Structure formats: structure tokens, C-alpha cells
């Protein structure tokens, strides 16, 4: 009977372990990925770029996941407690978003809130997309809830849940949540200007 050198099983185990770790890590990383503006990108002052500084911010992206899991925080980690999209984007049958989230931020508990708190529908999953892809998805009536440009402007500049991004309250330690990098007024003006100019998506 042939004998196998002791080192071979150990090497095989090591290689297998490295492969498994690589595969697992990729899965985990992809599920955490959020859209952010790369640090080396020169921020332009166009209405499109201003608008996208908001729409790519975690305050927006965390509730536009590309899976069924809401995200939380600056690092866009999966929502604690295993909460998922559930029925009608409102959580599960007996434990819904509104079990914890009310129509306003709660400064005592640090739980954020706004009217009709919910996840964006699955067709509006933006997590992992760049700003050009988000813009394309946003204008696509098959993905945007069949909204016209006027309806999109209304949604982006009037909807209380969208505008919550600029008044996100404090966390459970009483620390204010980060807001998008431009003001609400600048954002609204940018959205209106971009749509008034034909909602043209610039070339990448």
C-alpha cells in the first residue's frame, strides 16, 4: 500500500481553506457594498452631480437595497434583527417597519422615523450602482413606479420620506446622523434644474 506524505493533506486543506475564505469574503463584501463617490473623482458643480451626491449617499441608498435587506449606518450594514423587505416593502406580517419606526424621528430611542417608512420597491434597488446607472434606473418607467418626469420631481423634492435624509435625527447615543453633503435647498434646486434641462444623463 502506498503512503501519502503527511504534507499533502495539510497543503490541500490550506488551499481549500484559502479558496473558501475568498469565496465567502466576496459574498459578504458584495452584500455590504454601497454606492459611494470614489475619492479620486473630481466633484463637478452640475445639477446632475449635485443631485447624485445626495442620491448616492447612505441616507438614500440604505433603503434602496439591491436585495431584500434594509441597510443601516455609514457602513451600510444589514439591518439588525434579521429585518427584511417582507410583504409590500413594509416588513413582516406581525413585525413590520412600524413596530419600531414611527412617522417622526424618536430622539429618546434614536430610532429614525418618517411618514410611510418603508423600503423602496425592489425595482428601485440602487445599492451597488454608480450614479449613471442610478439615473438610468430612475428614469425607467418600468423600474420607477411608472413615474413621469414631473412625478419624479415631485417624489424627489416633496416626499417626506425622501427629504428625511436632510433631517435624519440622532442615533441611540444621541449623535446626529450624517446628512448628505449638500443642503436640502441646493439638492432641490439641482433636481429641478436637471429635469428642466431634459434630464440628460451625462456620458461616463
Amino acid at each position, binding site marked *: 500500500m502506498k503512503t501519502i506524505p503527511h504534507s499533502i493533506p495539510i497543503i490541500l486543506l490550506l488551499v481549500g481553506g484559502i479558496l473558501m475564505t475568498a469565496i465567502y469574503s466576496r459574498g459578504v463584501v458584495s452584500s455590504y457594498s454601497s454606492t459611494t463617490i470614489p475619492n479620486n473623482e473630481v466633484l463637478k458643480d452640475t445639477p446632475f452631480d449635485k443631485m447624485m451626491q445626495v442620491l448616492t449617499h447612505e441616507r438614500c441608498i440604505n433603503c434602496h437595497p439591491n436585495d431584500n435587506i434594509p441597510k443601516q449606518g455609514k457602513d451600510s450594514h444589514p439591518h439588525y434583527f434579521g429585518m427584511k423587505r417582507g410583504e409590500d416593502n413594509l416588513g*413582516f406580517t*406581525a*413585525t413590520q417597519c412600524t*413596530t419600531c419606526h*414611527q412617522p417622526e424621528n424618536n430622539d*429618546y*430611542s*434614536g430610532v429614525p422615523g418618517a411618514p410611510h417608512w418603508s423600503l423602496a420597491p425592489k425595482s428601485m434597488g440602487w445599492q451597488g450602482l454608480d450614479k449613471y446607472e442610478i439615473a438610468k434606473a430612475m428614469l425607467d418607467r418600468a423600474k420607477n413606479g411608472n413615474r413621469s418626469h414631473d412625478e419624479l420631481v415631485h417624489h424627489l423634492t416633496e416626499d417626506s420620506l425622501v427629504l428625511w435624509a436632510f433631517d435624519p435625527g440622532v442615533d441611540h447615543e444621541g449623535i446626529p446622523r450624517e446628512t448628505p453633503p449638500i443642503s436640502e435647498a441646493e439638492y432641490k434646486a439641482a433636481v429641478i434644474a436637471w429635469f428642466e434641462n431634459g434630464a440628460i444623463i451625462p456620458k461616463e
Partner: protein
Amino acid sequence: MKISFSVNEVPHSIEIKDENTPLLWVIRDMLHLKGTKYGCGKAACGACTLHVDGEAVRSCSYAVKFAEGKKIRTIEGLGTKENPHPVQQAWIEEIVPQCGYCQPGFMMATAALIDKIPEPTDDDIDRNIINVCRCATYYRMRKAIHRAAQIQRTTSKTME
């Protein structure tokens, strides 16, 4: 500010300075119903769960102003010693509690669950009962939840 609501079918009108006071403290400190517990204070553990218009709500994160005109049910209103709610009956049969602190919250969450899903699967339980028990009585609770649903279904059939 005056806020009116019912708790366990008893109407209440309270005067309160801060309308954002968590409902939990109104229930415990103004109405002296101590069954609803304070756990984490950030809607994470579920010890403060009660029902508002039939929906499970974490009362530490629910401003009392939102309770205006609503029907609130706490653990004290779930059943009585003589006529326990199916959840209470099941909890007794399965001897669920250890320290017991978190149990009212779990029981209120379970009562809401079996009202909406009369025959919950393990997956339904995993998704909907996400409170925290530091004694880790989860295994016994799972058995009790299935048992409570069974008792409720049997009771409903008997009443038909």
C-alpha cells in the same frame, strides 16, 4: 397637552408636558401598569412590546402623542388568571420563563403573530419574533408559540 386613548378597554385621558414621552413611561409611571418592561430603550430588545390598534409596537420608541384615539393593549389586558389568553396558557404549559423579565414583550409579540398568522411556521416565528431573551429561552418559546397557536385555533373552532 391632553392625550386620550384606551388601555385594555379602559378609557384614559392624560395631561403631559412632553408629547414625545415614550408611551412605555406613560403606561408604567402614570397608569401604573408595570407588566410592560423597559429593556434597552432603543427598540432593539422588544421587552416593551405592546399592541396599538392590534399591531405590535415597541413602546420605548413610540411617542405618546401618536396614541391619541388609539386602542392599546398591554400584558395586563391579554387574559386573566381564570381565563388566560392562549399565549399565557401555552407559556404556563411549556414552563417558558426563566428570569421572566422579557417575557411580557415576547408574549405580546406572539399574540400579535397568531392573530395574523393562525398557524405560524418556524420561519414565520423566526421572522416575526425577534425580541431578545438573555436567558435564551428561545427553544421553549418556540414550542409555546406553536402551542399557543394550536390553543387559539381550537378555541376559535369551538366558538364557531
